[in-house]
């Protein structure tokens, strides 16, 4: 529940952004991020909120960690707990599933 996940800002309005996470697009709130965010920036996100703009020089190293994690999980036979946490984070910006 304390794991942030990086994604690419593809659209912006005042209060939120559409962020691309490995092809999955989610809406992320910008209330908490502490510097201006632009389209093309990478942000680290937690429970549906961007918490940090990732400096350009750190983007590749940050993405590589997650990409390895997701790749190992795709190859493995069972879901990894850290990957499960990442997937929860991705679900945070999804429209709520409507249940009757």
């Amino acid at each position, binding site marked *: *529940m*304390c*794991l*942030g996940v990086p994604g690419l800002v593809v659209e912006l309005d005042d*209060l939120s952004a559409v962020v691309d996470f490995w092809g999955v697009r989610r809406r992320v*709130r910008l*209330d*908490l*991020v*502490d510097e201006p965010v632009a389209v093309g920036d990478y942000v*680290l996100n*937690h*429970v*549906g*909120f961007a*918490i*940090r703009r*990732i400096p350009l020089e*750190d983007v590749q*190293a*940050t993405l590589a*960690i997650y990409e*390895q994690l997701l790749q190992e999980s795709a190859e493995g036979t069972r879901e*990894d*707990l*850290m990957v*499960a*946490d990442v997937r*929860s*984070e991705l*679900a*945070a*910006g*999804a429209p*709520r599933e409507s*249940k009757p």
Partner: protein
Amino acid sequence: MTGRLEFRDPDRARALGGALEQAVAEVGRSPVAVMHVCGSHEQAIAKFGLRAAFPRGLDVIMGPGCPVCVTDLPEIDEAFALAMQGVRVATYGDMLKVPGTAGSLADAQAAGAHIDVVYSVAQAVDLARETGDEIVFFATGFETTAVATAAVVLAGLPANFSVLSAHKFIPPVMEIVAEMPHTRVEGFLAAGHAAIITGSGVFEPFVARHHLPVVVAGFEPLDILAALVKLVQMIRDDDHGVANMFPRCVTREGNRNAQQQLWRVFQTVGGRWRGIAHVPNGNLRLRDEWAHVDARRRFTIDVAALCDRAPSTLVRQCLCGNIMAGIAQPSDCALFGKECVPESPVGACMVSSEGTCRIWHQYGGVPNLGASA
């Protein structure tokens, strides 16, 4: 177990392993005991079998780093009672199965209560707006998650939305654990992503008071090894400072915008943490000016009705509290992997993906413990 050490850079892993062994030897006493306070650290340690690679003289104890696990019975009971009173309760998925005195929120759901699992507090606010139903958000997690709750409060809430805060603040519990006689912790690894918000500077008053080093660490296996080398070297050198070994993400000041929002909405109060008992300033409560969105003030929560139910025999045998306090390991528990499994957890530590029991169970039962007591 070493066959599972699949680092991208085995040479660097070997070099760090060697440096760690040397630093531990140079401390000159055994074991050197350090504590981490992050479920993601335990995930990486267990998944990569790191304990097998630690030198024999090093004890890496898992502390109260799982927010779901440290949420204690009274808070679960409040959410359970509200749900049974007919209020719609929204919360993070991990909270569903955590047992309270009379049952878990999943039990309340089975009994007809209306529980909604959300991945973000923003989704819970949307739910209130869309349905018009009275919604209580059962808010759990450390400061990293509490800032999101603060943000929605400050952004303006619909009248039918309130917050039952079980948010917790990590630095105060480190003070308690540092003074617990049986743990003898000589230094802490602090969680990298939590420190994005607070900054590594939040630990400076702690190290000044307790003369114990704190190293902020990332959650990759090599990050953890590198941070442990630094921590043990600081113990060896009597260097009671804060080192930031995760500068890619963490600054000394942290995210000031998020901190300001956090403290405009919340204040610290003392409260119970599972296994640690009372932690002064360890809980985050809504400030008085937000009383109108505080579920504890909006509703009369009748937990007394739950109190005549004694916890089951199994729950009384559960060691989750001692595991959170760093004085027991999952393998010490008679229920671990037998009566208590992820599908039917007896205690909170088997529920959450950050719970020590769940992590050990996932990654092959009992990891090789190297130097553990």
